């Protein structure tokens, strides 16, 4: 029995690990969207973060620099988006799509020389506890610091948006940039900051993939996780806690259906592979049914271009 319980613990630990990139990227995008900016470049920023983190690790042999570097490169590529949409007033959707295409191509180009290089072991915390405590051990311990950060992040984000002045200002800008501007808030600055923060978090999500989750560089290794993160934000109706729930469900069913495939259930593989997407959407739609709350959480100005009257 204790073996079984421990196995479930390990399974849950694996589910948590697989949902980390989604939580990080979605939490970053959530802040961006709350300020009224729709950045569809999540996938592109993530993969840039993945390759730059891996490349820096190979070059400097320093994991700390690699992680910081991935965040900075996610941030830099999001500046492109910021300049285009906020200063040159281009359309958010088109610019975001372009950013993703750019990121995927760029990462493939940089990544050519890094294919097949083995990754470095990322330090895990509290490994002793993991092995010595049955069930809870593999759930709570033996993870990288980024995982702990990722699981804290939705709560921090929630607190930040609801309780702090800056959070209030971000929500206000997302609600009505014109009103905010008339109140003396620098809308462009707020939106730039949120875009950059979103970029940094996507970069970190990418680094988690290439440094910890599957420590190597594979072309296109984000595999659509950026799009899932985007969808999570919308289906979680811009609530950070629901993003966490959604990411866990998605990660959970992804892992479970792999096991089901391995066991050889007589369900078509294609259906099993589609299961995470279907279930996540169903659950999030069901838990977000309160139309009043949706209205309160939805950034009214999402995707709208703002310019100041002179």
């Amino acid at each position, binding site marked *: 029995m204790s073996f079984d319980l421990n196995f479930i613990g390990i399974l849950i630990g694996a589910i948590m690990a697989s949902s980390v990139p989604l939580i990080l990227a979605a939490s970053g995008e959530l802040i961006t969207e709350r300020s009224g900016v729709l950045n569809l470049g999540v996938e592109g920023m993530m993969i840039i973060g993945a390759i730059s983190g891996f490349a820096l690790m190979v070059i400097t042999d320093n994991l700390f620099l690699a992680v910081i570097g991935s965040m900075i490169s996610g941030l830099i590529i999001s500046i492109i988006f910021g300049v285009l949409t906020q200063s040159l007033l281009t359309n958010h959707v088109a610019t975001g799509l372009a950013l993703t295409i750019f990121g995927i191509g760029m990462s493939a180009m940089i990544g050519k020389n890094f294919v097949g290089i083995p990754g470095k072991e990322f330090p895990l915390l509290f490994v002793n506890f993991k092995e010595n405590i049955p069930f809870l051990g593999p759930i709570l311990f033996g993870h990288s610091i980024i995982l702990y950060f990722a699981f804290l992040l939705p709560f921090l984000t929630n607190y930040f948006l609801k309780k702090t002045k800056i959070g*209030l200002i971000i*929500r206000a800008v997302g609600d*009505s940039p014109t009103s905010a501007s008339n109140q*003396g808030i620098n809308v462009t600055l707020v939106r730039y900051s949120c875009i950059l923060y979103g970029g940094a978090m996507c970069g970190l999500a990418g680094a988690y993939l290439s440094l910890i989750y599957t420590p190597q560089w594979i072309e296109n290794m984000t595999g659509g996780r950026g799009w899932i993160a985007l969808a999570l934000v919308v289906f979680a109706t811009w609530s950070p806690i629901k993003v966490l729930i959604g990411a866990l469900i998605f990660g959970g069913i992804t892992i479970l259906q792999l096991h089901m495939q391995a066991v050889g259930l007589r369900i078509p593989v294609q259906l099993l592979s589609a299961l995470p997407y279907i279930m996540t959407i169903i659950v999030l739609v069901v838990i977000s049914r309160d139309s009043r709350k949706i209205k*309160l959480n939805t950034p*009214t100005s999402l995707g709208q271009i703002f310019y100041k009257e002179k």
Partner: protein
Amino acid sequence: MNTKLRVSEISKIYPGCVANDEISLEFGSGKIYALLGENGAGKSTLVKILSGVVRPDKGEVFLNDKSIKLNSPLDAKKNNIGMVFQHFNLFETLSVFENLSIDSDKKNEDLRLSVNNILKKYNFKIDLDIPVLNLSAGQKQKVEIIRCLIRNPKVLIMDEPTSVLTEQETEDLFVSLKQFSDDGILIIYITHKLKEVLSLCDEVAVMRKGKVVSVSKTKEEKIETLANKMVGENLSTIKKKINNFKYSEEILKISNLNFRSDDPYETNLINLNFSLKKGECLGIAGISGNGQSELFQILSGEIITDYTSIKFRDKEISKLNPRERREYLMAFSPEDRISQAAVPELKIYENVALNNFKSSNFFEKGLVNEKKIKEHSKKILSNFSVNTDNVEMKSQFLSGGNLQKLIIGRELITSPELLVCFNPTWGLDVGAINYIHETLININEQGKSSILISTDNDELLKLSDRICVIYKGKLSKIMYVNEVTPEKLGILMGGGSID
């Protein structure tokens, strides 16, 4: 606390339009000043300059004889100038308190305390912890006012504050404004409503085409004198000739009109029967929300009801949709210009094409014949003196008056036998109102009929031949206009009975 505000030679030029031309004005505390002008006279530009939203090309603003720079809304706040815009600057999804705290430097507890003091002092009743989108327009405006009051303003500017308010809310607002004025706040009140100027303000500055044309005490003014200053010409107050009903032909007959709705915000209509003669204008009075919009939609065919009989020139049309009714030469001008009558994002000529499917030469084999539509639109623009000849312009850039002229023109250019209009002059300035009234009188004189559903009694008494009142979905008896007095209408509108 004595406050003096002076603007000196302010100019602001937009491409193709001088919004403010060397404006100089002086204001002192303890009084309520009206800034009066038609839409587009430059009032809003001036107050945007005073609140730091727009920078003037030239000129200075002095507060207590000191020149102040107003480069941003923050500067206006720093100088204790508060501003309540016509379109609220609130964050709908945030709570009232969050809206107030966003630009306050105070701690939350201190802010709550001072907000509660303001609520108590001026007898405002607002729940601070519900989202703004749940408030009525009047309450939203109070939130805006409180936001200004927190900063102990020396100057409070109100831009067309009553355009969204009910009558009761307007009265409450006036009481509050007088209180603020007694507390030493200088109040500048921007409006195009003449009655409000006379009942609320001490002094009035009239603006026209970007210039100040007159400054005077309101005691010395009358509605007519102010109206003439505003429009810049002597308004010919047209009067309708008494209708001697020379045509006996009955053009429209409604019998057994009943309407039941499950929507609690709609009014049920109960057993309406009336008829309309050729060349007649039937006025339907009433306080808004008593079934007017349901009646309009049934007449226009937006709502089809069972068992109702609508006979138009002896044809049963009760089951026809609006397009089919137009083909029988009925025309409709709905209440809401922006969302019902026109599509603001479309160009003028596209809006013209929208309800003229009948005109077969507009569309050929499913393709739009732009040239024909544009010619037709140009004709409407010139025949109905819309203030532009550019049919390519998006309709949203037309002022309310010009948009209404376009809509009425679009309807009338096909020479319909019956025009049904609902609050055709709501929110318009004097010049436009006058024009529309003239137009409506003209069509009756040409032997065309009209139904005028309106909440404006002066308008009804001026234009109608017969009047009735709608109250809670029921119609009063129909009276000839010479038997009707405003008092009688008032009694019927409140649900009372006469004779």
